[in-house]
């Protein structure tokens, strides 16, 4: 068990390292002097003194691999440099944006899991029935609906017609939980649709497979009610492939938040990323990209560890990890 977890952690380290290399390379590929690029001012308005200080600060006088090491060390300790537009530390710019993004992605995650798993299980209990057919078609559609369509329909109905919800903006959760939920429910639903569809399809096929297992027949033949057979016996095994998707999904949700935050004018990380790209605030861009990638790798690591707890075959090493 311990060895398995350690192994997973060691497998995650090179991935984090490579993501850092990629970001470093992309940032260095930006046309122009790295200092000016980092400063976000391609046609330098900075004097020679400032430039020298900047080169010193970012270690740009060192060999490239030393630069990379310094840069990575700073990133890992949460020092993402200074914004040259607002003269604030990047961390101070990014931190307040974490809340909205986390809140929306977490809400979307929960909504998707609730809908997706329910639909999947209901479909699987009556495979190829009319109910199953309708639900499957529904998930097929939901997987293809772009954020724009869901968002505009929700906005038109709940914000502009019924006036139940604010069309845009964000209220921090700890200021006013209820208003906060009202301001995030539409972005969260928008974000959850596609993921719910993926979960529903995966849950259905995984549950159908489990329900054909002999131990389910045993449970049924001893007279156990169908509801209990599913919740007590089938669910556990059917959930295994789902757990893997839950980890991978985080990246998609982060990606989607870039769009939904723009649609609903939520001041989150995605919004900041887009604004920073437009404003050439590359120090902020690399910070956000790194945080996203780091979180995704960490989530996958957690899933791998969780998997070991759920599946004794892995814990006991019967199935060799790849």
């Amino acid at each position: 068990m311990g060895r398995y977890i350690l192994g997973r952690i060691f497998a995650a380290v090179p991935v984090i390292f490579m993501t850092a290399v990629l970001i470093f390379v992309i940032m260095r590929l930006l046309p122009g002097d790295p200092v000016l690029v980092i400063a976000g001012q391609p046609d330098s308005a900075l004097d020679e003194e400032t430039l020298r200080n900047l080169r010193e600060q970012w270690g740009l006088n060192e060999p490239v691999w030393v630069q990379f090491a310094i840069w990575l060390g700073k990133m890992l300790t949460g020092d993402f440099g200074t914004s040259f537009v607002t003269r604030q530390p990047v961390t101070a710019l990014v931190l307040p944006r974490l809340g909205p993004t986390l809140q929306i992605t977490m809400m979307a995650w929960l909504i998707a899991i609730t809908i997706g798993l329910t639909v999947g299980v209901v479909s699987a209990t009556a495979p190829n029935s009319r109910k199953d057919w309708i639900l499957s078609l529904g998930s097929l559609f939901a997987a293809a609906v772009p954020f724009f369509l869901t968002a505009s329909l929700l906005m038109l109905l709940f914000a502009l017609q019924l006036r139940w919800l604010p069309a845009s903006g964000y209220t921090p959760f700890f200021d006013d939980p209820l208003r906060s939920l009202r301001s995030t429910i539409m972005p969260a639903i928008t974000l959850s649709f596609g993921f719910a569809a993926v979960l529903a399809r995966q849950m259905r096929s995984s549950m159908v497979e489990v329900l054909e297992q002999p131990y389910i027949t045993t449970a049924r033949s001893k007279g156990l009610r169908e509801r209990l057979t599913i919740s007590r016996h089938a669910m556990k095994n059917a959930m295994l492939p789902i757990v893997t998707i839950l980890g991978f999904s985080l990246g998609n949700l982060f990606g989607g938040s870039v769009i939904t935050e723009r649609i609903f004018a939520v001041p989150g990380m995605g919004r900041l990323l887009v604004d920073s790209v437009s404003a050439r605030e590359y120090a902020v861009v690399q910070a956000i990209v790194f945080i996203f990638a780091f979180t995704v790798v960490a989530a996958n690591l957690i899933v791998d560890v969780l998997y070991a707890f759920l599946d004794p075959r892995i814990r006991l090493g019967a199935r060799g990890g790849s």
Partner: protein
Amino acid sequence: MAASGTVGTDRPAVLPQIRPVEKRRGLRQALRRFTRRRVVLIGVVLVAFELLFAIFGPLLIPYEPQRQDLFHTLAPPSPEHLLGTDDLGRDILSRLAHGSRISLTIGLSAVFAAGIPGVLLGLLVGYKGGTLDNVVMRVTDSVMAFPSIVLTLTIVAVLGQGIFNLIIAIGVAGWPNYARLTRGQVLAVREYDYVLAVRTVGATQTRIMLRHVLPNAINPAIVAMSLGVGFAIVAESGLSFLGLGVLPPTPTWGSMIQTGFQVLEIAPGLVMAPGVMIFLAVLGFNLLGDGLREALDPYLK
């Protein structure tokens, strides 16, 4: 074989007989599996509709997509303007048709930009193995750790905006998937006896990989490419919506939607029309992908 007699009356009977029996049966079976599910046919119809609209729409609609008519802005649908006009009085249907050309071109090209290098690299490292394989797989792991739209827009920030750069950016974010899928297949295929047989008669490695291993390892990538068109279309519309994709005034689905959200209450059609086009395109290519999966790999569900 009863069919061959009837076929022979309107088509040269030699044609089907040239092919080896096995292959012909395989193709026909694949085609039958492909068309077995009716939803797959819906996918074919949707994709055909999208392509026809993009190809012929701009020829049939009498309005220039760029021509402004500031006296008739945000007009509701009417016989002259079937979908109404946008905030600058431009015909929405016309912009939709021209936008479809660009969005679909980007979607399809980006899939090839990701798929061809991805498949070839997967083939190479899967066949050769060793350190190269390890390194490439770690690279794919880390590229896949980035949310794809985040990676795409970072690359666009480096390359600059525009249609070609967008294709490259979406391609760069997409190749690892194809590389991994192909590599996985190649690992199995390279162990087959027939590969050993080809090697013993002295075929070059390039020839073995391209002629003998690739055809048996490419199916999952083909399925993924069909699904990938949907992803690429969504990525393009997302970036153009954010103002980081194709530059205005060139119409694409995403840039139309960007304008649309500003006038959502007055003219919801400006978001809905391209939104529905994206929906139908993604649905169509997804269904096509499902059909291909069943046709090409009957054992995989």
